[in-house]
């Protein structure tokens, strides 16, 4: 009967742990949101920060974060999916493959600051670009690539073998089988993974300190040429993202409302990440349903 007592006790302890964790999370989210809640208005979200006075916003930072995300994904997704396809479908079982696999593992466990320093050396100094959005995007690509490769590989491997056999047995070439049968079936998984990776891009700061920089030029939202310094779309300009902004405001903020701005920015960041997470789930399911319910 000691056994039954132990059973009870363990159940209680584990339940308490679960409650503790949920409590912490809810507390954490609640705290951040409640602190920043009053800042969540259109003006704060769209106006530029003010260096001297109170009342600045986070418009350019928000834009930078989104733009950086798009740039990163444009570079990282094709590479990640390509490499994922190689790992899942082509990689022979040999030393080279093992080496690639180890490279992926190493990349995924690299501290983001090391990636940032590498970016500083290569994308900032060696290329002579200085701190640029593009350099930041490349650093974040390095950072997200392993995740995307793994997600793609897993998603491809999770497609039932029978799908592949069905296609090959119809005399379809391997590449076409991959592209037309396996990849579509793996899409929900890949999309979910990509959106989760987006959340990481959005929240990353350490790697960006050294690559995209801690400042943002005065963006002119009427100028969309790719090479003007004040054009929002110019990828070769420094760009402070939301996460970096929180870091900077916290450490160097001179304005009287620095704390307020940090609170607001943190809330915006959390909400963005929440949105990414939820949409990842929802979108993945939606694509899956859409695909399996025909009509394509």
């Amino acid at each position, binding site marked *: 009967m000691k056994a039954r007592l132990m059973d009870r006790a363990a159940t209680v302890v584990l339940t308490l742990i679960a409650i503790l964790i949920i409590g912490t999370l809810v507390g954490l989210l609640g705290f951040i949101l409640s602190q920043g809640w009053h800042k969540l208005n259109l003006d704060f979200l769209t106006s530029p920060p003010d260096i001297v006075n109170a009342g600045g916003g986070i418009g350019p930072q928000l834009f930078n974060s989104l733009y950086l995300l798009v740039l990163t994904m444009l570079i990282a997704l094709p590479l990640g999916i390509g490499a994922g396809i190689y790992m899942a479908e082509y990689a*022979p*079982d040999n030393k080279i493959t093992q080496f690639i696999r180890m490279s992926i593992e190493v990349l995924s466990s690299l501290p983001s600051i090391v990636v940032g320093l590498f970016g500083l050396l290569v994308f900032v100094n060696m290329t002579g670009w200085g701190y640029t959005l593009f350099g930041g995007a490349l650093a974040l690509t390095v950072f997200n690539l392993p995740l995307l490769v793994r997600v793609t590989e897993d998603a491809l491997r999770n497609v*039932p073998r*029978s*799908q*592949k*056999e*069905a*296609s*090959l*047995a*119809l*005399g*379809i*070439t391997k590449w*076409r089988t991959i592209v*037309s*049968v396996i990849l*579509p*079936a793996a899409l929900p998984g890949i999309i979910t993974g990509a959106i989760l990776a987006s959340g990481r891009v959005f929240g990353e700061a350490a790697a960006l300190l050294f690559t995209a920089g801690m400042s943002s030029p005065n963006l002119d939202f009427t100028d969309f040429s790719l090479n003007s310094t004040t054009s929002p779309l110019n990828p070769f300009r420094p760009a402070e993202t939301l996460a970096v902004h929180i870091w900077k405001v916290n450490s160097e903020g001179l304005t009287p409302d620095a704390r307020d701005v940090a609170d607001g920015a943190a809330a915006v960041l959390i909400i963005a990440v929440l949105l990414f997470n939820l949409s990842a789930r929802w979108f993945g399911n939606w694509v899956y349903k859409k*695909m*399996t*319910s*025909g*009509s*394509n």
Partner: protein
Amino acid sequence: MSVLTMQDTIIQTNNVNVYYGEKHAVKNISMGIEKNSVTAFIGPSGCGKSTLLRSLNRMNDLVPSCRVEGSIIVDGIDINSSQVNIESLRQVVGMVFQRANPFFKSIYENIAFAPRFHGMTNKRDLDELVESSLRKAALWDEVKDRLRDSALSLSGGQQQRLCIARAIAMQPTILLLDEPASALDPISTMKIEELVMQLKDEYTIVIVTHNLHQAARISAKTAFFLMGEMIEMDETGKIFTSPENEKTEAYISGRFG
């Protein structure tokens, strides 16, 4: 059987051995398969039926550890020779698997996928082909109003017939069926059996089955395998009434397996 091949033999295997790494799964099999007839492979689980069947359209190429020795001649050509284009071979030798595996696409797309890939792009032609294939697979009446629905919305038996239609749409000469009805309910099983009986006039069919009664009902010849060896191959009637080998008899009468 005379020397090695008979008049109407379309597939001829000569001393075929298949290995998975160290494992010798199919041992020294020589057999001829007649054109436009149904041949059944029977035997206990793991005896190598599927392995041999998959060698006939080189699906075993997918298994890295798998090695096939000996020659397999289809229509006079050794399919393992380097001149043979594997994609075209598989168009000629179609295959249907134990578990229905429709693509995660619409019913229409499931059937049109391969022909389109092989160069049929005209919409009208495709429509016709889809219809005729579904008709041959005795599925047309059940699905004609919902060709755009997902293939996964079909029942298990319908899915399996869809897979047969999909194979037929490539206009193969030979159809390999690996236990096509083993996962199905009795009624769907019956439909598949009827379908096989109908198709045998146009196609050469090789079917693997666990169900002895099924083999007896639909095949003209039956081959019995045991632990990788072909124990006996003969007219189905003969195998089930007076087999020559006592192991065959033991299996048929249910003493093991």
